[in-house]
Structures are given as structure tokens and as C-alpha cells.
């Protein structure tokens, strides 16, 4: 019986083995032996973080050429080198990435309803989008914490996930687990390429900043004493912080929530404080750049737009060359902004920091004369950025304005900056109400002239910054409001001697909402002038785009002489040619040029590395309406800091020394402490402040 049983089982086994043997011959699937080898080298965690089903899936993908040797997120560089060795490849280094949490709400984001369901963010989110009033904020139930296979996240005391940078492997499991997009995994390049999304946690100031600087973050870093960190946060969006800290008209402050409690936070003073700290230290903080891509890009124009574009392209690993017609870089920050507002030495230092990243600059080379779009292409530049600014002064449309002794505002400031000592005489009339007019007027005061600034509306309607207007008043500039030039009267030598003007009165509001000035008939009067400076407006000088300044312009242009480009990608009608700054927008803020320069650099990067420029649908363009509530409760009033004046009296009126100084450390810390650290609808309240003004933040 034993023998029979044994034999039977043996023969069934033998039969099965024979069938399997034959089958294995017939059904043999040839497998690359490298798959097994690679699989053995991988750590075998089978976590799926690489995006493939386990380590064998990853090994197969590497062999199939679908994944790089460094695909495994758990293993170290050594393993990647071994795998690359098996594949006979070089190791392509991955840029280090980390999970980051942008939301700052946590427990201070108010409850929309009381939630008692499953303690999971995804489950809570299914019920009316979760219990927090903020539509993008953290729900705080910790799905990300549970999803992290590496124990790299825990819930912090403020009810927000805290990521441990030493443990995070950037696998992205937390990102998948979060129903509200609070966490993202990103590296330096991704952060530089990121455009603000309506799904980001954007404080009102951050929504308004044309350069998209993470304002609450750098203010918080200042509050914590991490000044270098604050500089780096700003440099992630703006390489010209010394300049902006001095001349930015602060659009962000117009939206600062604090203004509904007392006064806006001195955001720009804080930027200047950290920028000046770096400046005074004399060494630039190291700025990281991605690995060289070997792609050459041409940046035409070394103004704020061009410098910003070149800086971001360099940081993304490309090799930009800046071409500029002037003897030094900086564009209108150098030639249009007087020394007393922005010392040239400080500007030089800042620009040098940008060039030191590995950017070439070719000065005194004019676009259209020394090189053209074609020659640039022929020289191997893969993309071209046009940031040639707006250097042509608009006329007054008054008879006699081409006489000697009439000089456009920007021409005057440029000539002065170039040291050409333009003749002012002793009576100067500046026509206009913007910052260029004020700059020209204050410069003439310093050159010893008696200056009258003529503006056709009233002081309240002047577009210049209030500080600038007050500064001009303090320095003795006389103002003649409600007056418009009629004609320039000259002597027999063809030199202007007087300006004839009309008195004006304000009529009905026009499209801009300002009341339109109307001429008072028969009100003509004359004013003596040795120099008349019309500073009414500027437009780009597009002559350089034409062959010999004439003929067909290769690019589409508008009637304001600006270049037409896609408003999202900044690409012009010629593929590979991008633009931004004043030549695209018309005269605008330095910070807008910087912001758009980065956006253009982003588009150029995508243009060179993939076939289209992605623009997400949720890209933030205007202000997000529900974040603009005005009832700010439970916040103590605190005084806003005041910038110290560095020079007074005669010294101020006769020299070009800088007028305003920087905050002291204690003042900066106190000012940073005034920031409410806003999110979309949340902000920091003072625990012991009265509660009577609290309103539902979402109304």
C-alpha cells in the first residue's frame, strides 16, 4: 500500500513536473537579467513611492528606460550609482525635494460647522468641503500624518502638520492624502516656476504683490530673527531687493489687512531692513542654481525685467547673456531714479550679486545696430528675451516744445545720471504729476534751481507716491496745480524763456474715475523758465526693432508702441522670443517688471525643455474676493514704524546723499510683530484683545 501510494503520488508529481517543464519551455518569457540585478540592489521596501508597483516594477521601468537610475525615493545616491552602473549609465542627480505646507491657518481658521464624522480629512472634506471656513485650509485631522510611510509628519501644536525635513523622502503620499492641497512636494526649480494659484494660501498682500513674494513668510522670519532666511524668501521671487526696498511704491500695502485695525504693516521697510543687512555685511548670501543645462539665452535689456529674467533663467540652470545699450546695467533703476533715492553703489552691489551667479553682460551694445534677432539665433541663443524698457518721453503736445531748453523727464534724469550735467538755469518748470516728474523736480532742487511743478489736476489726484510728494514739498519744490501748458515761448536764439499755461478746473469724472480737468477760457498766463521738463509719460522706443529704424516691424506692436505678447506666457508672435517690462506693459512699476521677468523666464524654461508652456487654470490673476473682508477683530492697535531721515536741511537739498534710512533691528522686529500673518480668511488674533469687533471672517 505504501509503495502504491508513493508510486501514485510520484507519478502524479512527475506528470505535473513534465507538463510544467514542457510549459516552461513553451511559455518562456525572456526577461532582461538586469531586472533581477537591479531589483536586488533596490532596498526592497516596495513602498510604491516611485510610482511603480513595487521594487520589481521599478526595476523593470529602469531597464525599459522609463525611469532614471535614481527613481527609488528611499535609497541613497550610492544605490543609484550601483543601478546606473548595471545599466551602464551616468547618474543623473535629482534636485532635492521636500514636502512643504503652505497653510498658516491651523486652529485659528474658524469652524464653518461642528463636525463629528470620521477623523479623516478626506472623509471630512466629503461633507460640505470640511468644517473650516477657509476653502483651502488644513482640516487638521491628520490624513497626511497617517499616509506618510516614513513618519516624517506629525501634527504640530497649532493644528497644522509639521514636516521633518530630515525624514521626508518626497514620496508625495501626503500630497495624495490631502483633499485640500495643503501640502506640496517641491524642489528649488519647482518653487521658482510656481505661479500663485487661487488654491494657495495667499494673504491679501501676497495676492497683490506683482512679484508674488511670500510676504507673510519673510515677515515671520524677521520676527523670529532669521534675517538670512527672509532674504532668501524674497530672493525666491525678487533678485533686486535692495532696489525695491527703496523705491517700491508698495502695492502690497494697499491690501494689507492691518489697515482696518490701525495702519498697514510697513512691508517694504522690512524688506529694506533685511536687504540692507545683507548689503552692509558686504557678502552676498549664496544662491543655489540648478545643474547647468548648457542652453544659451539672450536677454536684451539690463533693466529690472531683464535682470530678473536672467537671474531666474540662471537659477534654472540656463546660461543667459545680457545685452545692454547703456554703459552700465540697471536700466531705469539706474538712469531714471535719482541717487538720493537709490545710491548707485548699492545698485552696483546688487547687480554684481546677480552677475556673479554666472551671467554674462555685454554693455554698450545696441539692439538693432550691433545685433538683431537673427544674429542672436545664429549665435546659438535658443530663446530671446526683449526687455528694452520705455525710454522715449511723451511730448506735451504744446507749440514750441522742440525749442532748446525743453527736455523730457526721462532724458533729463538719464543725462544727469550719465554725468552730462544738463543745464538747468535758475528757474525750472516740471510738467506732470508722476514719480518721474517729482524725481526731476527734486534733482533740479539739488542742482540749485528754483523749481515749480505744474500739474493739471489737484494734489489729491497726483499719481506719484505720497512720500515723494511730501519729500518734494519739504525740499522747497513749488506746486502749481490745475494748470496745463499751452505753448513754449522762446527768444530770438530759439531758446525757451517762458511757458504759457491755462488755468484748469475739474469737470466730470473720466474713465479712470478721476475728474477731468477742463480749460478755463481766457485764463492764459506766463511763467518764466530757464528749463522746461515735460514728464508726462514715457513710451518704448521701438525704432531698434526695425531695419535701420524704418520699415516693417517683425513683431506686432500696439498704438502705445508696446510689443504684443501672450499675457500668460509673454511669448511674442515669433516663437522663442519673449518680452516683459515696460516695453510690454508701457511705463509701470519696477516690481511689476521684476515679477513679469520671472514669469517670462518660466515660459522660456518650459519652451526650451518641453514643447509647451503650461499655465494652470487656477492661476491667480485678480484679488480673491472672499479674502478682502474689512472687519478685523481682537487685534490691539500698535504704531507703525517710521523710516528715519538720513540728511536734513541744506545738506538734503544740495547733495545727492540718500534721504531715507533703514529701520533698526528693534524697530524691524516690532514692525514684523504688527503683521497678522494672514492666510486666505484667517489671521492672528491677540488673545487678550476685546472681542467685540469680531465678525464672521467669511462675510
Amino acid at each position: 500500500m505504501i509503495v502504491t501510494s508513493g508510486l501514485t503520488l510520484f507519478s502524479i508529481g512527475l506528470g505535473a513536473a513534465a507538463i510544467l517543464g514542457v510549459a516552461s519551455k513553451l511559455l518562456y518569457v525572456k526577461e532582461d537579467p538586469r531586472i533581477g540585478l537591479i531589483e536586488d540592489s533596490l532596498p526592497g521596501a516596495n513602498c510604491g513611492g516611485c510610482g511603480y508597483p513595487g521594487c520589481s516594477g521599478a526595476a523593470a521601468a529602469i531597464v525599459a528606460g522609463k525611469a532614471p537610475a535614481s527613481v527609488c525615493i528611499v535609497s541613497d545616491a550610492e544605490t543609484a550609482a550601483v543601478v546606473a552602473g548595471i545599466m551602464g549609465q551616468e547618474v543623473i542627480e535629482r534636485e532635492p525635494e521636500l514636502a512643504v505646507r503652505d497653510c498658516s491657518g491651523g486652529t485659528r481658521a474658524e469652524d464653518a460647522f461642528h463636525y463629528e464624522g470620521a477623523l479623516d480629512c478626506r472623509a471630512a472634506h466629503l461633507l460640505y468641503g470640511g468644517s473650516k471656513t477657509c476653502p483651502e485650509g488644513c482640516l487638521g485631522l491628520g490624513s497626511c500624518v497617517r499616509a506618510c510611510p516614513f513618519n516624517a509628519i506629525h501634527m504640530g501644536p497649532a493644528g497644522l502638520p509639521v514636516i521633518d525635513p530630515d525624514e521626508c523622502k518626497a514620496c508625495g503620499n501626503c500630497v495624495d492624502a490631502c483633499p485640500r492641497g495643503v501640502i506640496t512636494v517641491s524642489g528649488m526649480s519647482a518653487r521658482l516656476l510656481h505661479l500663485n494659484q487661487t488654491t494657495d494660501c495667499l494673504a491679501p498682500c501676497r495676492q497683490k504683490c506683482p512679484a508674488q513674494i511670500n510676504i507673510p513668510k519673510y515677515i515671520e522670519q524677521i520676527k523670529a530673527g532669521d534675517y538670512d532666511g527672509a532674504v532668501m524668501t524674497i530672493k525666491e521671487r525678487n533678485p533686486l531687493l535692495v532696489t525695491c526696498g527703496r523705491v517700491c511704491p508698495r502695492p502690497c500695502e494697499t491690501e494689507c489687512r492691518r489697515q482696518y485695525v490701525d495702519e498697514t504693516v510697513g512691508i517694504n521697510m522690512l524688506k529694506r531692513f533685511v536687504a540692507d543687512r545683507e548689503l552692509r555685511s558686504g557678502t552676498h548670501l549664496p544662491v543655489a542654481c540648478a545643474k547647468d543645462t548648457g542652453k544659451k539665452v539672450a536677454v536684451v535689456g539690463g533693466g529690472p525685467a531683464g535682470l530678473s529674467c536672467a537671474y531666474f533663467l540662471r537659477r534654472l540652470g540656463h546660461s543667459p547673456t545680457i545685452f545692454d545699450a547703456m554703459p552700465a546695467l540697471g536700466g531705469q533703476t539706474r538712469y531714471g531714479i535719482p541717487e538720493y533715492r537709490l545710491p548707485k553703489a548699492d545698485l552696483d552691489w546688487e547687480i554684481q550679486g546677480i552677475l556673479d551667479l554666472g551671467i554674462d553682460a555685454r554693455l554698450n551694445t545696441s539692439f538693432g545696430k550691433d545685433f538683431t534677432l537673427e544674429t542672436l539665433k545664429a549665435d546659438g541663443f535658443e530663446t530671446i528675451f526683449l526687455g528694452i524698457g520705455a525710454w522715449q518721453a511723451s511730448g506735451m503736445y504744446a507749440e514750441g516744445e522742440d525749442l532748446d531748453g525743453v527736455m523730457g523727464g526721462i532724458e533729463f534724469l538719464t543725462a544727469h545720471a550719465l554725468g552730462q550735467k544738463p543745464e538747468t538755469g535758475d528757474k525750472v518748470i516740471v510738467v506732470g504729476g508722476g514719480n518721474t516728474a517729482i524725481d526731476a523736480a527734486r534733482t533740479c532742487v539739488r542742482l540749485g534751481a528754483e523749481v515749480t511743478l505744474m500739474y493739471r489736476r489737484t494734489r489729491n489726484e497726483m499719481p506719484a507716491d505720497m512720500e515723494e510728494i511730501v519729500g518734494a514739498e519739504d525740499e522747497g519744490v513749488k506746486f502749481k496745480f490745475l494748470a496745463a501748458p499751452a505753448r513754449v515761448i522762446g527768444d530770438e536764439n530759439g531758446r525757451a524763456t517762458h511757458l504759457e499755461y491755462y488755468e484748469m478746473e475739474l469737470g466730470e469724472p473720466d474713465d479712470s474715475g478721476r475728474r477731468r480737468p477742463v480749460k478755463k477760457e481766457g485764463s492764459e498766463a506766463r511763467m518764466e523758465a530757464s528749463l522746461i521738463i515735460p514728464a508726462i509719460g514715457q513710451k518704448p522706443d521701438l525704432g531698434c526693432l526695425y531695419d535701420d529704424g524704418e520699415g516693417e516691424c517683425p513683431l506686432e506692436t500696439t498704438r502705445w508702441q508696446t510689443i504684443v505678447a501672450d499675457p500668460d506666457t509673454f511669448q511674442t508672435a515669433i516663437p522663442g522670443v519673449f518680452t516683459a517690462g515696460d516695453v510690454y506693459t508701457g511705463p509701470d512699476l519696477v516690481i511689476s517688471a521684476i515679477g513679469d521677468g520671472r514669469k517670462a523666464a518660466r515660459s522660456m524654461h518650459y519652451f526650451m525643455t518641453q514643447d509647451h508652456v503650461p499655465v494652470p487654470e487656477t492661476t491667480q490673476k485678480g484679488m480673491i474676493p472672499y479674502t478682502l473682508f474689512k472687519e478685523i477683530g481682537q487685534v490691539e492697535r500698535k504704531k507703525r514704524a517710521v523710516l528715519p531721515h538720513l540728511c536734513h536741511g541744506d545738506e538734503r537739498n544740495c547733495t545727492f546723499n540718500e534721504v531715507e534710512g533703514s529701520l533698526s533691528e528693534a524697530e524691524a522686529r516690532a514692525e514684523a510683530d504688527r503683521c497678522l500673518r494672514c492666510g486666505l480668511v484667517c489671521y492672528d488674533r491677540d488673545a487678550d484683545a476685546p472681542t467685540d469687533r469680531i465678525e464672521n471672517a467669511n462675510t
Partner: protein
Amino acid sequence: MQEYFLLFIGAMFVNNIVLAQYLGNCPFIGTSKETSVAVGMGGAVVFVAVMATAITWLVQRHVLVPFGLGYLQTLAFILVIASLVQFVEMFLKKMVPPLYKSLGIFLPLITTNCAVMGIALICQREEFGLFESTMFAFASGLGFMLALVLLAGVRERLAVRRLPMAMRGTPIGLIMAGLMSLAFFAFKGMI
């Protein structure tokens, strides 16, 4: 016809292979953490159970019974099922690679799955014909899949609740399986 229908319903609900017979418990607890995994495992069991039952039926009727070796049933069936699974794996890898990939680790797991063995043995005990056997195997496989998917659904929800530490994972899984088994007793009244 009615007979087959009753056989089908009976195998799937009343005598559910896991919840009533309590076979295949380890893959039942082990692969019921996520619904998607449960569906994959359930599908694999249905497939192998049907194939295994048909082949073991043939082995029993044409080898073991004629030679009076009925007592070797268990051993012979183990051998047959293990070889069959190996064969199916090779076959799928060559001929239907997408299905092979999606079944992944579950296919070899079934080799040691007592539910498959149980189904084959029950068919012999009940003396079903070849057609009845395969139908029974199919229905039992579906029953296994049903129980697996239901438990996975429950456990996915449990995973996000706050549970006492000692209860998390397998313990609460076993309790839930017990409760489901009680609930399935209600089907006893159907036939």
C-alpha cells in the same frame, strides 16, 4: 434549472466559503485592507478555483477512483493545485501579460489557499458532476470575493477611526469577520 440556481445561491451566500465554512481565513484577513486589492484577490480566486475544481474532478474520477486510491485525495489535490497555479502563472505571463501584472502577488498566494482546496474537496464529498462542480466553484469563488470586498469596505472605514491601539489592524478585522459571519447566518433561512 432551479436546482442549479439553488446550488449557486447556496454556495455564494448560505454556505459562503469564508463566512460559513471558515476556509481561506488568512488571505481573507490579509488582503481585505483595501477594496481594490480585495477585488484583485477575489478575481484571482474565482479563476483558480474554477480551474482547480475541474482538474481535480478529472483526477479524482479518472485516476484515484479507478485505482482505489481515494485516500490519497488530499495529497494529490495539493499537488495538482500547486502545479496548476504555477502553470496558470506561466501561461498568463506569456499570453496575457496585463492580467498577469494586475494579479501580481495574488496568484502565487493562492497556491496555499485552503479555500480553493476546500471547494475542490467539497465537490467530491457532495459527489457533484463536472458541470455542477465548476459551477459550484465559480459561485464559491464569487462568495469569497463578496465577503472580501465587504470586509475591505468596512476596514477602509475603520482605518480612519480612532481605535484603541490593541484593536487596530488584525484584531478588529477578525471581530468584523465574526460579525459578518453572524450576519450571513441570516441567509440560512433562504434555502
